[in-house]
Protein backbone atom coordinates (compact mmCIF):
# COMPACT_ATOMS: atom_id res chain seq x y z
CA UNK A 1 0.00 0.00 0.00
CA UNK A 2 2.86 2.28 0.82
CA UNK A 3 4.37 1.66 -2.61
CA UNK A 4 1.09 2.46 -4.29
CA UNK A 5 0.85 5.72 -2.35
CA UNK A 6 4.37 6.61 -3.42
CA UNK A 7 3.50 5.85 -7.03
CA UNK A 8 0.40 7.98 -6.74
CA UNK A 9 2.48 10.82 -5.39
CA UNK A 10 4.84 10.38 -8.32
CA UNK A 11 1.92 10.52 -10.70
CA UNK A 12 0.73 13.71 -9.07
CA UNK A 13 4.06 15.45 -9.29
CA UNK A 14 4.35 14.68 -12.98
CA UNK A 15 0.70 15.74 -13.40
CA UNK A 16 -0.18 12.41 -14.93
CA UNK A 17 -3.38 10.77 -13.76
CA UNK A 18 -2.29 7.16 -13.68
CA UNK A 19 1.41 7.02 -14.28
CA UNK A 20 1.63 3.55 -12.83
CA UNK A 21 -0.27 2.10 -15.77
CA UNK A 22 2.79 2.49 -17.96
CA UNK A 23 4.73 -0.57 -16.76
CA UNK A 24 1.65 -2.67 -17.52
CA UNK A 25 1.46 -1.45 -21.06
CA UNK A 26 5.16 -1.91 -21.59
CA UNK A 27 4.98 -5.41 -20.20
CA UNK A 28 2.01 -6.40 -22.29
CA UNK A 29 3.39 -5.09 -25.56
CA UNK A 30 7.05 -5.95 -25.25
CA UNK A 31 6.49 -9.43 -23.78
CA UNK A 32 9.66 -9.15 -21.77
CA UNK A 33 10.83 -12.01 -19.65
CA UNK A 34 12.30 -10.22 -16.71
CA UNK A 35 11.96 -9.69 -13.01
CA UNK A 36 9.46 -6.95 -13.70
CA UNK A 37 7.05 -9.51 -15.15
CA UNK A 38 6.21 -10.82 -11.71
CA UNK A 39 5.56 -7.51 -10.06
CA UNK A 40 2.05 -7.30 -8.61
CA UNK A 41 -0.07 -4.53 -10.10
CA UNK A 42 -3.21 -2.95 -8.81
CA UNK A 43 -5.32 -1.24 -11.42
CA UNK A 44 -8.64 -1.69 -9.66
CA UNK A 45 -9.69 1.95 -9.45
CA UNK A 46 -12.39 1.19 -6.89
CA UNK A 47 -9.70 0.21 -4.38
CA UNK A 48 -7.35 3.09 -5.19
CA UNK A 49 -7.44 6.39 -3.40
CA UNK A 50 -7.88 8.92 -6.24
CA UNK A 51 -6.27 12.20 -5.15
CA UNK A 52 -7.66 15.56 -6.30
CA UNK A 53 -4.79 16.26 -8.75
CA UNK A 54 -5.60 12.94 -10.45
CA UNK A 55 -9.25 14.00 -10.73
CA UNK A 56 -8.40 17.40 -12.27
CA UNK A 57 -5.87 15.78 -14.59
CA UNK A 58 -8.42 13.21 -15.75
CA UNK A 59 -11.04 15.96 -16.24
CA UNK A 60 -8.46 17.82 -18.36
CA UNK A 61 -8.39 14.81 -20.67
CA UNK A 62 -12.15 14.30 -20.63
CA UNK A 63 -12.76 18.00 -21.40
CA UNK A 64 -10.19 17.78 -24.20
CA UNK A 65 -12.00 14.92 -25.91
CA UNK A 66 -15.33 16.68 -25.35
CA UNK A 67 -14.32 20.03 -26.84
CA UNK A 68 -12.64 18.26 -29.77
CA UNK A 69 -16.17 17.14 -30.72
CA UNK A 70 -17.66 20.46 -29.55
CA UNK A 71 -15.56 22.39 -32.08
CA UNK A 72 -18.06 21.14 -34.68
CA UNK A 73 -20.79 23.20 -32.97
CA UNK A 74 -18.57 26.30 -32.79
CA UNK A 75 -17.53 26.02 -36.45
CA UNK A 76 -21.14 25.47 -37.47
CA UNK A 77 -22.30 28.60 -35.58
CA UNK A 78 -19.36 30.59 -37.01
CA UNK A 79 -20.06 29.43 -40.58
CA UNK A 80 -23.75 30.24 -40.32
CA UNK A 81 -23.22 33.62 -38.63
CA UNK A 82 -20.74 34.73 -41.30
CA UNK A 83 -22.71 33.38 -44.28
CA UNK A 84 -25.20 36.25 -44.56
CA UNK A 85 -27.30 38.73 -42.60
CA UNK A 86 -30.07 36.09 -42.44
CA UNK A 87 -27.60 33.49 -41.22
CA UNK A 88 -26.44 35.82 -38.46
CA UNK A 89 -30.03 36.43 -37.31
CA UNK A 90 -30.68 32.68 -37.56
CA UNK A 91 -27.79 32.00 -35.16
CA UNK A 92 -29.17 34.62 -32.77
CA UNK A 93 -32.54 32.83 -32.89
CA UNK A 94 -30.92 29.45 -32.25
CA UNK A 95 -29.05 30.90 -29.29
CA UNK A 96 -32.40 31.93 -27.81
CA UNK A 97 -33.55 28.31 -27.62
CA UNK A 98 -32.76 26.42 -24.44
CA UNK A 99 -31.16 23.37 -26.04
CA UNK A 100 -28.71 25.28 -28.21
CA UNK A 101 -27.88 27.49 -25.25
CA UNK A 102 -27.23 24.49 -22.99
CA UNK A 103 -25.15 22.81 -25.69
CA UNK A 104 -23.07 25.95 -26.27
CA UNK A 105 -22.66 26.47 -22.53
CA UNK A 106 -21.38 22.92 -22.11
CA UNK A 107 -18.80 23.41 -24.89
CA UNK A 108 -17.76 26.80 -23.45
CA UNK A 109 -17.54 25.17 -20.00
CA UNK A 110 -15.30 22.44 -21.44
CA UNK A 111 -13.14 25.08 -23.12
CA UNK A 112 -12.81 27.14 -19.93
CA UNK A 113 -11.92 24.14 -17.79
CA UNK A 114 -9.43 22.86 -20.37
CA UNK A 115 -7.90 26.34 -20.63
CA UNK A 116 -7.52 26.82 -16.86
CA UNK A 117 -6.20 23.29 -16.28
CA UNK A 118 -3.85 23.88 -19.23
CA UNK A 119 -2.52 27.12 -17.73
CA UNK A 120 -1.84 25.23 -14.50
CA UNK A 121 -0.06 22.57 -16.54
CA UNK A 122 2.21 25.19 -18.15
CA UNK A 123 2.94 26.74 -14.74
CA UNK A 124 3.92 23.28 -13.42
CA UNK A 125 6.12 22.80 -16.51
CA UNK A 126 8.07 25.83 -15.31
CA UNK A 127 8.73 23.96 -12.08
CA UNK A 128 6.22 25.86 -9.95
CA UNK A 129 4.00 23.86 -7.59
CA UNK A 130 5.54 20.47 -8.29
CA UNK A 131 5.53 19.34 -4.67
CA UNK A 132 2.78 17.14 -3.25
CA UNK A 133 1.23 20.12 -1.42
CA UNK A 134 1.66 22.33 -4.51
CA UNK A 135 -0.07 19.74 -6.66
CA UNK A 136 -3.09 19.62 -4.36
CA UNK A 137 -3.26 23.42 -4.08
CA UNK A 138 -3.00 23.76 -7.88
CA UNK A 139 -5.83 21.26 -8.35
CA UNK A 140 -8.00 23.14 -5.82
CA UNK A 141 -7.31 26.42 -7.62
CA UNK A 142 -8.23 24.83 -10.97
CA UNK A 143 -11.55 23.55 -9.59
CA UNK A 144 -12.41 26.85 -7.90
CA UNK A 145 -11.46 29.20 -10.75
CA UNK A 146 -13.02 27.08 -13.47
CA UNK A 147 -16.26 26.77 -11.46
CA UNK A 148 -16.41 30.57 -11.21
CA UNK A 149 -15.56 30.99 -14.91
CA UNK A 150 -18.20 28.45 -15.97
CA UNK A 151 -20.90 30.11 -13.82
CA UNK A 152 -19.97 33.53 -15.23
CA UNK A 153 -20.20 32.10 -18.76
CA UNK A 154 -23.70 30.84 -17.90
CA UNK A 155 -24.72 34.26 -16.60
CA UNK A 156 -23.35 35.84 -19.79
CA UNK A 157 -25.23 33.41 -22.07
CA UNK A 158 -28.58 33.86 -20.28
Amino acid at each position, binding site marked *: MREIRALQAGGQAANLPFQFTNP*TRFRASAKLKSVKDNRPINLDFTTLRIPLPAVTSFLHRVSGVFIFAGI*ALLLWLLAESLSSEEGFLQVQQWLDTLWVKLLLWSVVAGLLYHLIAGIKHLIM*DMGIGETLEGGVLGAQLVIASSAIAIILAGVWLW
Partner: protein
Amino acid sequence: MVMVTNVTSFGRSGVADWLVQRVSAVILGVYFVGLLGYLVLNPELDFDRWQALFSTTWMRIASLAALIALCAHAWIGMWTVSTDYITTALMGSKANILRFVFQLACVVLIFIYLIWGIQILWGN
Protein backbone atom coordinates in the same frame (compact mmCIF):
# COMPACT_ATOMS: atom_id res chain seq x y z
CA MET B 1 19.98 5.57 -24.82
CA VAL B 2 17.26 4.13 -26.98
CA MET B 3 14.65 6.61 -28.13
CA VAL B 4 11.23 5.05 -28.29
CA THR B 5 9.36 6.22 -31.36
CA ASN B 6 5.81 5.50 -32.41
CA VAL B 7 4.54 5.56 -35.99
CA THR B 8 1.31 7.33 -35.06
CA SER B 9 2.68 10.09 -32.83
CA PHE B 10 2.64 13.59 -34.32
CA GLY B 11 6.34 14.39 -34.38
CA ARG B 12 7.63 10.79 -34.16
CA SER B 13 9.21 11.87 -30.90
CA GLY B 14 7.78 12.49 -27.47
CA VAL B 15 9.84 15.63 -26.95
CA ALA B 16 8.65 17.14 -30.25
CA ASP B 17 5.03 16.32 -29.37
CA TRP B 18 5.53 17.77 -25.91
CA LEU B 19 6.73 21.09 -27.36
CA VAL B 20 4.13 21.26 -30.16
CA GLN B 21 1.39 20.60 -27.60
CA ARG B 22 2.52 23.58 -25.50
CA VAL B 23 3.12 26.04 -28.32
CA SER B 24 -0.26 25.20 -29.89
CA ALA B 25 -1.89 25.49 -26.45
CA VAL B 26 -0.61 29.05 -26.04
CA ILE B 27 -1.84 30.02 -29.54
CA LEU B 28 -5.29 28.50 -28.85
CA GLY B 29 -5.49 30.07 -25.40
CA VAL B 30 -4.68 33.57 -26.66
CA TYR B 31 -7.09 33.20 -29.59
CA PHE B 32 -10.07 31.92 -27.60
CA VAL B 33 -9.61 34.38 -24.74
CA GLY B 34 -9.36 37.20 -27.31
CA LEU B 35 -12.45 36.09 -29.20
CA LEU B 36 -14.43 35.52 -26.00
CA GLY B 37 -13.34 38.94 -24.73
CA TYR B 38 -14.47 40.56 -27.97
CA LEU B 39 -17.90 38.90 -27.72
CA VAL B 40 -18.31 39.88 -24.06
CA LEU B 41 -17.31 43.50 -24.76
CA ASN B 42 -19.64 43.73 -27.78
CA PRO B 43 -23.05 42.53 -26.63
CA GLU B 44 -24.85 44.52 -29.37
CA LEU B 45 -22.85 42.91 -32.16
CA ASP B 46 -24.44 43.00 -35.62
CA PHE B 47 -23.69 41.13 -38.82
CA ASP B 48 -21.74 43.95 -40.52
CA ARG B 49 -19.28 44.34 -37.69
CA TRP B 50 -18.97 40.59 -37.19
CA GLN B 51 -18.23 40.05 -40.88
CA ALA B 52 -15.87 43.04 -40.98
CA LEU B 53 -13.89 41.54 -38.10
CA PHE B 54 -13.42 38.22 -39.91
CA SER B 55 -12.55 39.86 -43.23
CA THR B 56 -9.55 41.72 -41.85
CA THR B 57 -6.22 40.14 -42.77
CA TRP B 58 -4.93 39.99 -39.19
CA MET B 59 -8.06 38.19 -37.97
CA ARG B 60 -7.83 35.68 -40.84
CA ILE B 61 -4.18 35.04 -40.05
CA ALA B 62 -4.95 34.67 -36.33
CA SER B 63 -7.88 32.36 -37.05
CA LEU B 64 -5.85 30.23 -39.44
CA ALA B 65 -3.03 29.99 -36.90
CA ALA B 66 -5.55 28.90 -34.27
CA LEU B 67 -7.07 26.38 -36.70
CA ILE B 68 -3.70 24.81 -37.51
CA ALA B 69 -2.77 24.83 -33.81
CA LEU B 70 -6.09 23.11 -33.06
CA CYS B 71 -5.37 20.36 -35.59
CA ALA B 72 -1.94 19.59 -34.11
CA HIS B 73 -3.14 19.98 -30.50
CA ALA B 74 -6.17 17.75 -31.04
CA TRP B 75 -4.13 15.04 -32.74
CA ILE B 76 -1.49 14.90 -29.99
CA GLY B 77 -4.22 14.93 -27.32
CA MET B 78 -6.33 12.22 -28.95
CA TRP B 79 -3.20 10.16 -29.62
CA THR B 80 -2.17 10.39 -25.98
CA VAL B 81 -5.61 9.45 -24.70
CA SER B 82 -6.07 6.58 -27.17
CA THR B 83 -2.62 5.07 -26.54
CA ASP B 84 -3.18 5.34 -22.78
CA TYR B 85 -6.64 3.80 -22.52
CA ILE B 86 -7.30 1.75 -25.66
CA THR B 87 -4.58 -0.77 -24.89
CA THR B 88 -4.16 -4.53 -25.07
CA ALA B 89 -3.37 -4.50 -21.35
CA LEU B 90 -6.81 -3.08 -20.61
CA MET B 91 -8.99 -4.78 -23.22
CA GLY B 92 -7.05 -7.50 -25.00
CA SER B 93 -6.00 -7.83 -28.63
CA LYS B 94 -9.08 -6.09 -30.02
CA ALA B 95 -7.63 -2.87 -28.57
CA ASN B 96 -5.21 -2.57 -31.51
CA ILE B 97 -8.01 -2.48 -34.06
CA LEU B 98 -10.18 -0.29 -31.85
CA ARG B 99 -7.36 2.20 -31.33
CA PHE B 100 -6.62 2.34 -35.05
CA VAL B 101 -10.29 2.98 -35.86
CA PHE B 102 -10.50 5.67 -33.15
CA GLN B 103 -7.35 7.39 -34.42
CA LEU B 104 -8.61 7.17 -38.01
CA ALA B 105 -11.88 8.82 -36.97
CA CYS B 106 -9.89 11.57 -35.26
CA VAL B 107 -7.82 12.20 -38.40
CA VAL B 108 -10.98 12.42 -40.51
CA LEU B 109 -12.60 14.88 -38.08
CA ILE B 110 -9.42 17.00 -37.89
CA PHE B 111 -9.29 17.10 -41.71
CA ILE B 112 -12.95 18.15 -41.86
CA TYR B 113 -12.32 20.91 -39.31
CA LEU B 114 -9.31 22.17 -41.27
CA ILE B 115 -11.07 22.31 -44.66
CA TRP B 116 -14.30 23.65 -43.15
CA GLY B 117 -12.41 26.30 -41.20
CA ILE B 118 -10.51 27.50 -44.27
CA GLN B 119 -13.81 27.64 -46.19
CA ILE B 120 -15.38 29.75 -43.44
CA LEU B 121 -12.42 32.13 -43.36
CA TRP B 122 -11.99 32.60 -47.11
CA GLY B 123 -15.29 31.41 -48.55
CA ASN B 124 -17.39 34.40 -47.57
